């Protein structure tokens, strides 16, 4: 077979001409589908949300769809739909879950790294990642079963083995319950990345600081954590991004309630758009949420990532 890159082949058949084009412009062929997909899922939704936010788009009122609406959708969003409250709840939820998951994931990774028995180490490592296999909606059904004040095993245990009155976690402290459920679900994500990051810290460095007799905290503060900086940063960044995406767990565990105590922005947008079928107002909340997250993450990436840990 002749090599298709040779120019002599170009005159022979259409197929080899095609092959030549394929090889000559390979990087373009390779990049184009990805660029098209990413364009479609970044530029298009942002632009379309912006458009929807400025027009009337109530599915119950088809004749007015598309009419310019000024800032009325934003008024609905921050008025009757109480978007500001959702932003506040989302910040508490994201901050609470992020701090707990990072701290717990780090401590667990450090503890497991130090386990000497190989078999126990494998057991912990595998057991600790299992919650990630549980879909948020499945975790919500488990939560609804285990926390149910009548049939739930957790209130039962509290009633039976402690002097306290069994709390109804889903109605007394709903936001905390949702945060803890997310911690159960996603601490494995932090654990697994931190664990892998810790195993890549050079053993000689850790050993040297141990021989020096440096106290434990100093071994972490001066040797291990500085070495893990890129890993820590990416894990926290990705988790932060994903926490803002949270929908399924809260939606199926509390549906945003009781009242609106756990109504994250994502749930508010969903309710506004698909329960109250006002896509214009939903898009108004969505566009603000979207811009806020993209801005926050890009600031983090540029200020902390590019100017700090990745250089």
């Amino acid at each position, binding site marked *: 077979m002749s090599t*298709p890159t040779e120019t002599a082949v170009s005159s022979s058949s259409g197929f080899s001409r095609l092959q030549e084009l394929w090889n000559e412009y*390979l*990087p373009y*062929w*390779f*990049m184009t*589908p*990805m660029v098209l*997909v*990413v364009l479609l*899922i970044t530029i298009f*939704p942002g632009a*379309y949300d912006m458009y929807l936010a400025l027009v009337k*788009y109530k599915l119950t009122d088809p004749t007015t769809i598309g009419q310019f609406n000024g800032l009325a959708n934003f008024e609905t969003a921050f008025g009757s739909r109480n978007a500001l409250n959702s932003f506040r709840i989302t910040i508490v939820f994201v901050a609470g879950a992020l701090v707990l998951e990072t701290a717990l994931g780090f401590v*667990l990774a450090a503890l*497991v790294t130090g*386990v000497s028995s190989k078999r*126990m180490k494998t057991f912990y490592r*595998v*057991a*600790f990642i*299992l919650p*990630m*296999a*549980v*879909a948020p*909606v*499945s975790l919500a*059904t*488990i939560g609804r*079963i*285990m926390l149910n004040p009548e*049939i739930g*095993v957790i209130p*039962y245990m509290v009633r039976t083995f402690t002097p306290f009155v069994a709390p109804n976690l889903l109605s007394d402290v709903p936001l905390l319950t949702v945060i803890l459920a997310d911690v*159960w679900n996603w601490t494995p994500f932090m654990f*697994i990345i931190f664990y*892998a*990051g810790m195993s890549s810290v050079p053993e000689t460095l850790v050993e040297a600081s141990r021989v020096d*007799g*440096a106290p434990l905290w100093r071994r972490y503060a001066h040797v291990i954590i500085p070495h893990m900086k*890129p*890993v820590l940063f*990416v894990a926290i960044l*990705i988790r932060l991004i994903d926490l*803002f995406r949270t*929908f*399924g767990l809260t939606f*199926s565990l509390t549906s945003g309630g009781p009242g609106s105590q756990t109504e994250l*922005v994502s749930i508010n947008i*969903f309710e506004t758009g698909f329960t109250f079928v006002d*896509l214009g107002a939903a*898009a108004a909340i*969505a566009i603000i*949420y979207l811009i806020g*997250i*993209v801005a926050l993450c*890009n600031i983090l*990436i540029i200020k902390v990532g*590019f100017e700090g840990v990745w250089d």
Partner: protein
Amino acid sequence: MASVEDAAEPDRRLPKSTRKRLVETGRHALLLVWSFVVLFPLYWIISMSLKPPSEAIALPPDWIFLPTVYNYIQLLQEGSFVDAFLNSVFMISASVVLVLVIGVPAAYVLSRYDIPRQRDVLVWILSSRMLPPVAVIIPFFVIFRALNLYDTRIGMIFMYVTINISVVVWVMKAFFDGIPETLEEAARVDGATQFQAFRKVILPAAKPGIFSVAIISFIFAWIELLFSLVLTNSRAVTVTMEVYQFIGVRQIEWGMLAAATTATIVPVVVFVIAVNKYLAAGLSFGVVIKE
């Protein structure tokens, strides 16, 4: 510093071997507590799914019971659950293949060629994950209805591609960066075209990475609820949507709810145990590519 302290007050400290054993015991105690926190809910839902209806919600719980598949038979007879389960497996598998076909070659180019402002391109790709799905779904809801993609498998497969494309590109770029360029140079010297070098030399070398992103993409798609909630109605319903509907309608049939929940969890748990070594690379977007 600490060693000086050691010398100054030797007798206030326990002997080294005892101290070591104490630390080790404390470590295991903490780790076992978390193991319990992690495993108990899983045990609880699985055991509940295997209990006959009369015992399912009994308190105090029957720790010892005769397991029965009654709830699962009920679930199979339901039909819609099985359909949704198979539907999810099909749609997600297709989307994983598609996202790999789109993402892996692009990652290769990003790793090997001089792309202008490469770092910005990577951040732009990552930004596709920053957009909250609920903000993305509104435009797609409108468009899908206009293009007759509402409640179709094709539409759902595309939506799953959108959530995973950034992971695939980031992780695979990290993997390709780790493969020495001399490998394909050698292949080129032997007369292979650029594409042949990629397919016959680079792809096999990047297998662990491909495996890793395939797993992660599958899991991210499997646990997704919103897309099915908004974009499907009957034909393209997913397994998570089916479980969600059980919460509302079947609140009282606890055994069946437990069985449905277990059916969504156990396959993925088995899967995760089998491939646990490959998860870190995918989850960290390629920052740690080996454990």
